[in-house]
């Protein structure tokens, strides 16, 4: 049982209190840039069913906690990705799904694809695969949840996309 008077236990409990509802309602942005998006849709479907973790898609960045970059991002798209990210309320998380979002993947030697979305925005979890199976995406979501539970209420996350440039 927890007592308010007992010194340093409080922040931990507060973190738990804040993070638990947060991790159980990860609303991800409905945003797919390439073929990985198909697997993302599949993951939202009945078989893997992201809904059971409280993760549902949102069609606007203003309501989203998680930016799931599903697919290759071109330089033309990069500005939009960054803008979407900046429009999300804090705390926000980024999951780079698929080899393209991780490093450029099979387009790494092309002229138009960004060589990893971490060149534009900070990434929390990298999910390899081309495309990752829905089970893998499920696991990545659980990893994000674990990551969320480690957050401290007193520590502000680095979220500015400017800082990377």
């Amino acid at each position, binding site marked *: 049982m927890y007592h308010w008077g007992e010194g340093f236990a409080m922040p931990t409990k507060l973190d738990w209190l804040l993070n638990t509802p947060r991790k159980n309602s990860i609303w991800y942005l409905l945003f797919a840039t390439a073929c990985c998006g198909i697997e993302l849709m599949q993951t939202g479907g009945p078989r893997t069913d992201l809904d059971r973790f409280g993760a549902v898609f949102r069609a606007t960045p203003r309501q989203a906690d998680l930016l799931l970059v599903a697919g290759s991002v071109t*330089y*033309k798209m*990069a500005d939009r990705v960054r803008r979407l990210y900046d429009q999300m309320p804090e705390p926000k998380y980024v999951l780079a799904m698929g080899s393209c979002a991780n*490093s450029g993947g099979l387009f*790494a030697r092309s*002229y*138009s694809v960004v060589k990893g979305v971490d*060149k*534009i925005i900070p990434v929390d979890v990298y999910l390899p695969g081309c495309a990752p199976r829905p089970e893998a995406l499920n696991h990545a979501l659980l990893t994000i949840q674990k990551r969320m539970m480690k957050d401290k209420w007193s520590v502000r996350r680095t979220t500015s996309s400017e800082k990377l*440039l």
Partner: protein
Amino acid sequence: MSDVKRMHETLSRALPDIPLEVESAQAGMSWIHVPAEHIAAVIGHLRHTEGFDYLACLTGIDTGEELQIAYTLRSLPDKTECALKISLPRDEAVVPTISHLYGVADWFEREVFDLYGVHFDGHPDLRRIMMPDDWEGHPLRKDYVFPSEYHGISAERPDPHDLLDPEYEACAVDPAPKSDSKEGSTS
């Protein structure tokens, strides 16, 4: 007789002033080579008189020495196909547009302009279509130099092949131990 040869005869009769030649590739495909400045006249004739009502493809080619543009026309009622090609110098690639003949050519030509830097004379709206408007260069040209950054986004990432341990690679491609063990197990 192939569609292309037949069309070449028809065109030569109808447009005697334009030098047209049938060329073919080893793979069996053949096309009519047209001087670049006459391409609009030739395609206009095919469109209005020969019934080629469908522009299936308009694409650019960079052979290294010259730029080419290939036009593939189809006639849906006659079920015939005709391919045309033009050659352009690399440094001054200008060609008359055919966007007034086929609406779809508008975007096709913008694409060729974007990726090969060919200018289409008389095109109503010759802008880039795929690359960002402020992109420099035309990426599908053979002499294109890849940018090292765009809008502050670095395009550098180490090639994973360079990071691999060379000895690891040598082991991975050497099939000898595997086949040995297989023989041992089957005999």
